[in-house]
């Protein structure tokens, strides 16, 4: 099993609503959609953001787009209005997710 970082096989963008962060995640190569579906679960994302995201994590699957939408509650230190994070809007939550380690049986890249 080769070890990869999620950034090598996926791309992402994050946005905010109040104290909720959402991250969309897409397979760079459509063939890797299933691999992401198996490995980047809501549970793993919750564990990945331990100490940052205090609330629940929900994953929505979008097979026609080859991606996922993650909704992370209590994720932004109170949200844009009250947060004293440097990144109050969580614009960098996407790249933080892409630090996740994943395993691939065969490399498509």
């Amino acid at each position, binding site marked *: 099993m080769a070890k990869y970082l999620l950034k090598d096989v996926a791309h*992402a963008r994050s946005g905010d609503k109040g104290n909720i962060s959402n991250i969309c995640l897409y397979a760079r190569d459509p063939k890797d959609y299933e691999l992401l579906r198996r490995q980047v679960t809501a549970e793993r994302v919750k564990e990945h953001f331990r100490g940052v995201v205090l609330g629940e994590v929900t994953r929505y699957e979008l097979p026609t787009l080859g991606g996922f939408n993650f909704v992370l509650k209590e994720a932004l230190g109170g949200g*844009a209005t009250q947060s004293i994070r440097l990144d109050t809007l969580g614009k960098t939550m996407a790249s933080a997710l892409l630090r996740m380690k994943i395993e691939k049986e065969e490399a498509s890249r």
Partner: protein
Amino acid sequence: MKTIRIGGGQGFWGDINDAAIHMVKKGDLQYLACDYLAELTLSIMQRQRQRNPEKGFAQDFIAMLREILPVCMEKNIKVLSNAGGMNVAGAVDEARKLADTLNIKKLKIGYILGDDLLDKLADLQAQGITMKNLDDGRDLSEIRDKIVNANVYFGHEPIVDCLDMGANVVITGRATDSSLFLAPLAYEFGWKPQEWDKLARGIIVGHLLECGGQGSGGNFDYDWRSVPALDDLGYPIAEVGENGGIVVTKAPDCGGLVSEQTCKEQLLYEIHDPANYITPDVVADISQARLTGAGKDRVRLDGVCGKPRPDMLKLCIGYLAGYKIEGYLPFAWPDALDKAQCAADIILKRLARKGLKAEEVRVDFLGVNALHGPLAGEPACKPNEVVLRIALRTRDKKEAAKLAPEIAPLQLNGPPGSCFFGGRPKVSEMIALWPTLVPRDAVKLTPSVLEVK
């Protein structure tokens, strides 16, 4: 078949006007829609208006109109915007004066009043509308004396009314970002309030365009290096057919990129459940959406459906929730991180000695962990320079102010090799948002048109 071309000219209040000006000239548009309002913007505008009654709207929009209005009148391009913010009448008045200055005749400025419910909260409560906090169920009485603003999010119908009355420019307060884009489509194609699939497609057009450059190659994670001329970024344009067929593209002769990947990244931006994107106009479902390349800088969007709109409208109440302050101090090699950590310890000890009462204290090191926090791990090598950032959240303004004098002296009194950066920290107000719902029929929106003869 008739198609309408709409451009998204603005991503937020403070965005640049260049792309809007360019697409008006070269984008072959019939409509330009400009979104200025993020979640907190109205609270900030309200504070501006309280200091100066002539302010409280996005004055940048007037600056944009100065550049584009003559061309828009000549080409019959209509401009829609929620730049009116907390002072729609003030923005309309400025637009009227501008038309006089530019000697533009026969301009009709449409505007919509009624989203500002600050003076009506007591009436609404008297009608039994509780306005409890949608997130945590708290009672409005908890914040009653701290409220800054209260604005209801409204949809496309009153904007269509303005277009029906012949408006060339429409200025609103808290119209939803996407309704500014749906309105001209519904007006042109005669879409009815129950045609949910068509309305949903109009809303998603708005969703793809309302963030300006982020829909055409800006903030593009997939391959930012491949985007041509970010210094001259064109913003997205949608071509929409009568039945809601959608192609996203951009103007010629400018930078930027429209590809399946740029559209994908924007399509889910700030969406929660993709099958239930709730707006005042329709609940849009993009869970089965498909994006297909349709030529250079052209992408087709299919598979968007709609469901009936909600009975309640979202009301967003801004209230004063405390104060915050942040200070910065950079340190140079060698041992930059150790020195920054030492400076943080000094500041925290001195604040404790001053008896600081804070809700939250946060210490970050720019260059090390200020963005990814604990996920960043240890730096791979010793950084050449590190910036200490220290931030406080307090209930009392005096408490936050305790940080202000503590940063600069450390250039002389702390570890070696720091310099002053960013000026002396200033306390700022912290306005929190109270999301709640009100029944649709409790809100009276009035569309009008002012003619500049």
